[in-house]
């Protein structure tokens, strides 16, 4: 019994223990969630982490989902990117933006809209694309076989540097010796040995390293150029030729040869005509411009959209003018003619010969309208401005090279000796030349008018495809707002074979009323900080480095851009041999830059020298461009033929974020950073009247693999390692003039940020006297701001000095350096902008003597120095209308841009595909009726260039001009994280939803005059600017 009792009490104790212990344990275990059972309804936990949550960091950087470079605000939690918004300090994203001095802690919850567009927000899906290339790949099958293996970083660097029988395991390449960087570098001597001894002016053998990129923005492109320069190649080439090149060339040649873009001061303009500019859906910066236009239109801005199909901004426009593709120049020149004949131009402004005389008449800049041009074709300086010597005038040596103008009495002077020059020396609207010492001369104005009267208004109307009264109406309205009218343009008008002249004609409209630098006029925008440190006070001169030999690199670019044919040994040798230097083997482009199709043509023809190593950064020519040369998985297209030719392209290295259509042909693929893992310094656009320098920084730890010493695998690390292996100056130890090494990209980019911090060019608020004052270096960052650079201080503690870190922190904590909003309109005279093109004494060129005296290297014809309406032609000057007859090819093929996509690279973002999963061939309803098709029907589109044609579904849209078909240009992928490829023997199948939609690029016309005997050729292009023609192909449309 006793025992029993003991047992019972032991058991009771045990039971009590279990009961009490389990209850306690249960309650303790419920602590994390039980209290939530009693939350009041509505006070629940927000499922995402907002900006001011503990642990959430805001990091500012710059978007690159398109080229607008809007400031972005990345919300990061435990190094994961949660969300992308706009940077409230950046004027692209916010209007008015926060003052630069605002504490970032306040900015976190700034109650103002600071936006990114849909595309920008979807950037999160670009960085986290599951099909990214994160470690180096090497080709193991034939080019295009899509077979790769992963290799180590060391193998990548060593093989590409040293060369060798790199592909001996690939059938057909067993005995192919591939030259690496070492074979061009030749222990540093390669920079001094001509590639072609017969033409040493073409440059050294190191030029046979050809680097081109699709998108490398400031910072990154400076890094690539540094590598190229140090290696000794002039070939570090952007993509401008397939983008908007003719716009830039037309603008540069209308201005000082350097400024490539002006934009209307939308906030204050009264009347704007946009020719082919994609307002609301494209252009720069897309969201900023759209926001400004919508706002200004609501407040009274009148604007006209000139385009071949109705873009969304037509909804707010006062007028939609639908022109013939390429007819923009005719419309503009018709207006020029009307304005001149009705004396609606600003004669006083055009008569000013110098900046001083302009300023005296309250004009911020001046033109060369009154300068005299030699129009004697036989004169050795024909079509150049007349210098005193040319007409036998004696002047002092300082005045020898100055153009002449006539004073009111008709006497010639060098231009700066008189304040006003005559526009019409032989009578109003008279284009008869004057003669000085037997030399025939016309003023620039006379030449312009002479070119303007080549067609009557009705002819211009017919060429442009508009009604004649419209020209008068537009010209009348354009000249009825003083300086507050602007005619602006972009790709739609520019990317034709006549694009340069279209652009020159449109820019001439602005010069006739003298609207540049005026509030409400045409503006240059704020300046960017001197991030490369070329100025005096910059802490780091990044364009120089120790042991940099003079005149390296030198020679001619493989695309023959930036060099006048007339200055080459090819031209001079021919003349010396008594032969005609024309036609040159291929055209030369002294005014253009970044001409992709001519890079490829140079590689194909080995002219002016063959390429040995082709390095491609962030580009996708197999998919995107140039027109007609690629765009479909069809290896008979020129670009594929070139890249598959192992002799013409012995080594093809790319860096990319995925295995793209182009990557499929690469020998080596280096993992590239997405923009959210990259650095850069991004100037603003002229759309913004204040100074902008956005700083791009990796917002999270890059996803790419690391090298054995812990650096991020990316193209910068690759270039550094190749350079170090070769012993190139400017990399590794002792890489900067100010001391310090360049072993990782942060060593370079943080110095660039320091230069921005110490820049002293931008303005601060007005002082007590109402004047602007220079801001100087930024203040030191607070402790909280320093926290924003902690992670960089860990990575590269010695990249900048301790004092500089504080200023770098101030800049990075705000995402860049920005002038305050209210600085914009404080010019020294009423109505002048703060940042002015004319502030440095620049002039506007009604007539450009360099253009007017340069030959088309193929035909030998001279270009025209003013605006002009010319029809679409081949490089040899044959009319396209005579080649592709309208009777057969009765539609004009054009493209347009969507606001949710950018060329080749945004189709990897599912959010954007959800907005529009496929694309269409768009056609006017009258045309549709005539063909008997309705939306959803399939048609085949055929061009002379691509007779098998391409098919796609039709969308009938009344906004498309009859006779035009159009499509948007981001669809039709076949391999961009889609399709399939093989890595290490395993097939990777991508996301084929990226492959939807229509892509008609292969239809686009190759220049029939520039095909070689094998049928290889380049696209139609502008002979002056060099830009590719996207909009001059005529096609046949067949219902199927």
């Amino acid at each position, binding site marked *: 019994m006793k025992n029993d009792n003991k047992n019972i009490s032991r*058991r009771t104790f*045990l*039971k009590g223990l*279990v*009961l009490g*212990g*389990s*209850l*306690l*344990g*249960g*309650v*303790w*275990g*419920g*602590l*994390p*969630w039980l209290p*939530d*059972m*009693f*939350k*009041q*309804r509505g006070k*629940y*936990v927000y*499922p995402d982490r907002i900006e001011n949550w503990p642990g959430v960091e805001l990091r500012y950087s710059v978007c690159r989902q398109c080229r607008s470079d809007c400031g972005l605000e990345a919300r990061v*939690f*435990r190094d*994961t*990117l949660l969300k992308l918004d706009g940077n409230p300090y950046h004027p692209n994203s916010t209007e008015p933006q926060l003052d630069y001095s605002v504490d970032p802690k306040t900015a976190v919850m700034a109650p103002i809209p600071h936006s990114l567009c849909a595309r920008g927000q979807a950037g999160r*899906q670009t960085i*986290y*694309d*599951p*099909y*990214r290339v*994160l470690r180096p790949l090497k080709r193991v099958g034939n080019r295009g076989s899509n077979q790769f293996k992963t290799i180590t970083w060391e193998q990548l660097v060593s093989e590409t540097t040293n060369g060798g029988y790199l592909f001996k395991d690939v059938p057909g390449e067993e005995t192919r010796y591939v030259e690496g960087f070492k074979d061009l570098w030749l222990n540093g001597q390669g920079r001094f040995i001509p590639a072609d001894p017969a033409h040493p002016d073409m440059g050294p053998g190191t030029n046979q390293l050809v680097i081109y990129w699709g998108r490398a923005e400031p910072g990154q492109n400076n890094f690539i150029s540094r590598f190229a320069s140090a290696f000794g190649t002039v070939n570090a080439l952007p993509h401008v030729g397939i983008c908007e090149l003719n716009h830039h060339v037309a603008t540069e040649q209308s201005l000082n040869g350097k400024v490539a873009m002006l934009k209307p001061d939308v906030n204050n303009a009264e009347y704007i005509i946009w020719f082919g500019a994609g307002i609301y859906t494209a252009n720069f910066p897309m969201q900023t411009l759209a926001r400004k236009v919508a706002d200004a239109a609501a407040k009274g801005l009148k604007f006209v959209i000139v385009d071949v199909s109705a873009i969304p901004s037509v909804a707010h426009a006062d007028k939609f003018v639908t022109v013939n593709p390429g007819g923009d120049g005719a419309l503009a020149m018709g207006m020029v003619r009307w304005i001149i004949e009705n004396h609606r131009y600003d004669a006083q402004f055009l008569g000013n010969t110098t900046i001083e005389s302009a300023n005296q008449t309250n004009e911020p800049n001046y033109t060369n309208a009154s300068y005299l041009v030699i129009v004697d074709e036989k004169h050795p300086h024909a079509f150049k401005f007349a210098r005193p010597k040319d007409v036998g005038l004696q002047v002092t040596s300082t005045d020898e090279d100055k153009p002449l103008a006539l004073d009111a009495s008709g006497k010639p002077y060098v231009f700066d000796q008189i304040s006003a020059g005559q526009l019409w020396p032989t009578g109003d609207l008279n284009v008869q030349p004057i003669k000085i010492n037997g030399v025939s001369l016309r003023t620039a104005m006379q030449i312009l008018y002479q070119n303007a009267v080549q067609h009557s208004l009705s002819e211009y109307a017919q060429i442009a495809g508009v009604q004649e009264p419209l020209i008068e109406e537009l010209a009348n309205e354009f000249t009825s707002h003083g300086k507050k009218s602007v005619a602006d343009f972009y790709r739609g008008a520019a990317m034709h074979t006549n694009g340069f002249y279209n652009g020159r004609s449109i820019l001439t409209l602005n010069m006739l009323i003298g609207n540049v630098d005026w509030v409400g006029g045409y503006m240059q925008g704020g300046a960017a900080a001197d991030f490369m440190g070329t100025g005096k006070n910059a802490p780091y001169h990044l364009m120089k480095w120790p042991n940099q030999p003079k005149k390296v690199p030198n020679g001619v670019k493989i695309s023959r851009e930036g060099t006048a044919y007339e200055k080459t040994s090819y031209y001079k040798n021919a003349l010396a041999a008594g032969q005609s230097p024309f036609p040159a083997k291929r055209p030369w482009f002294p005014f253009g830059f970044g001409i992709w199709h001519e890079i490829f043509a140079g590689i194909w023809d080995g002219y002016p020298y063959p390429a040995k190593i082709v390095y491609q950064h962030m580009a996708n020519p197999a998919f995107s461009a140039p027109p007609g040369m690629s765009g479909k998985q069809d290896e008979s297209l020129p670009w594929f033929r070139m890249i598959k030719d192992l002799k013409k392209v012995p080594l093809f290295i790319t860096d990319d974020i995925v295995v793209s259509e182009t990557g499929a042909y690469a020998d080596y693929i280096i993992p590239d950073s997405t923009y959210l893992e990259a650095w850069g310094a991004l100037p603003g656009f002229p759309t913004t009247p204040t100074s902008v320098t956005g700083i791009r920084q990796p917002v999270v730890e890059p*996803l790419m693999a690391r090298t054995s010493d812990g650096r991020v695998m990316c193209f910068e690390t690759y270039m550094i390692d190749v350079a170090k292996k070769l012993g190139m100056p400017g990399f590794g130890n002792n890489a900067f003039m100010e001391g310090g090494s360049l072993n990782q990209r942060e060593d370079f980019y943080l110095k660039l940020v320091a230069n921005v911090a110490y820049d002293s060019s931008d303005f601060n608020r007005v002082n007590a006297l109402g004047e602007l004052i220079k801001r100087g270096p930024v203040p030191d960052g607070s402790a909280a701001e320093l926290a924003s650079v902690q992670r960089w201080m860990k990575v590269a503690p010695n990249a900048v000095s301790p004092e500089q870190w504080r200023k770098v922190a101030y800049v990075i904590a705000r995402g860049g350096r920005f002038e305050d909003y209210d600085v914009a309109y404080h010019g020294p005279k009423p109505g002048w902008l703060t940042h002015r093109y004319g502030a440095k004494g620049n002039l506007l060129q009604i007539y450009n003597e360099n253009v007017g005296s340069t030959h088309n290297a193929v035909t030998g014809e001279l270009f025209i120095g003013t605006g002009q309406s010319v029809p679409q032609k081949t490089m040899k000057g044959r009319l396209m209308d005579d080649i592709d007859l309208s009777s057969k090819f009765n539609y004009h093929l054009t493209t347009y841009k969507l606001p949710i996509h950018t060329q080749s690279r945004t189709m990897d973002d*599912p959010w954007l595909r959800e907005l529009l999963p496929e694309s269409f061939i768009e056609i006017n309803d009258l045309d549709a009726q005539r063909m008997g098709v309705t939306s959803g029907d399939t048609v085949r589109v055929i061009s002379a260039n691509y007779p098998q044609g391409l098919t796609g579904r039709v969308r009938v849209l009344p906004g498309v001009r009859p006779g035009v078909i159009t499509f948007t240009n981001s669809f039709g992928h076949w391999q961009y994280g889609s399709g399939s490829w093989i890595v290490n023997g395993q097939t990777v*199948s991508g996301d084929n939803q990226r492959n939807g939609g229509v892509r008609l690029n292969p239809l686009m016309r190759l220049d029939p005059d520039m095909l070689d005997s094998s049928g290889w050729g380049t696209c139609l292009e502008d002979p002056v600017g060099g830009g590719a023609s996207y909009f001059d192909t005529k096609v046949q449309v067949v219902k199927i």
Partner: protein
Amino acid sequence: MGLEQVYWTLPIVAYPFISGLIAGSFIVGSLSKIFGQKQYEPLAKLSLLVTLAFILFAPVGPLADSRQPSRWWELYTRAHIPEAPMGLFTIIWTTYVIVVIAEIYLAFRAPLHQLSEVTPGWKGRLYHWLTLGSTGMSEMRLRREHKWLVILAGFGIFLAFAFHGYIGFIFGAIKARPLWHNALMMPMFITSAILSGIALMIIVYSIVFRYFSFHRKVDSALVDGLMKIMIWVLLVDLFLDVVDILNSAPVAYTDQATASGFAEIFLHGPLTGAYWIGQLGLLVVALTLALFRGIRTSPLWASVASFAALISIWFMRYNTVIGGQLQPKVSQGVVLYSPALFGRGSMQIVFGLFMFILFVFSLLLMVFPWDDEATKHRLFHSTQLTNHGEQNRSTNKILEH
């Protein structure tokens, strides 16, 4: 936290585990009633209490894992079917709870009534209260109650299948996760549920009867019987696992997403050990042990084998719930996950859950007369004291049912 996370964490692993135990223990408890296996009679009442303790906490896993558990009642006030498969859970669970409570009432009413008459004080009043004041002890009444008990047990078995089949279904129905989207999910979950329930009952029976029953004795024949049943269920479970591997691992037999997910997670990934050793290895260990008669008839060793089976089933739940989420939807590689010790979605919560269950089970054990021998003894003891022969006879009658 990476770009992609494991959204359903440990409480959700515990959820199908606990649910499985309910289904299994309920079926074991019904063996004597439905299948006439009288030797399992001693388990009947005990398993009902186990079932109740576990079923009350079955929904706590998802509740603890949810962001707003305070809105639990909206499961009843808003339409969730067919949009949310989990809406089914509300219906099945609620029905199941009612059935289990009804069964407990029917099974315990008579002894509770008898005990209430012989037990003085608050305990007696509690027994009386638990009978809901029902005092009828006629043979007809008792027979009718038994009949209902059998009907409810049958319905309960159906519910057990539905309950666990549905859990398999909510995983199997999710097309977005290749490793879940598998028609085998339902049978696998049902089989493993029964397996885990048997294993649990072997352990609970062995412990409770060894330490807390009247005779403090475990019937090794009963354990042997349960173990034999367990062998068969183990074989089926292993078979399904093999079929699952054949369905998921070889590239030739399945879609690429499933094959690559299986390879990256279970063949050479973070859960390789959890799968091959934790899930399959322990299952084989349990099976091997169960094949020895000496082990089957030893409550201690049978419990060890059962425990191995239980742990294996826990791993199976873990591999399913967590493993399926380790396959990234938008990024490369695998999603990184290590279970939290404390806080949201942590081991702390799972520990608390089992502690609550233990608490409730202990409470039930203390209140309800689950041990027929003890009841008999108490009634007999009090009959002797009060010389109440009638009652003794009726006691025997009840216990025979």
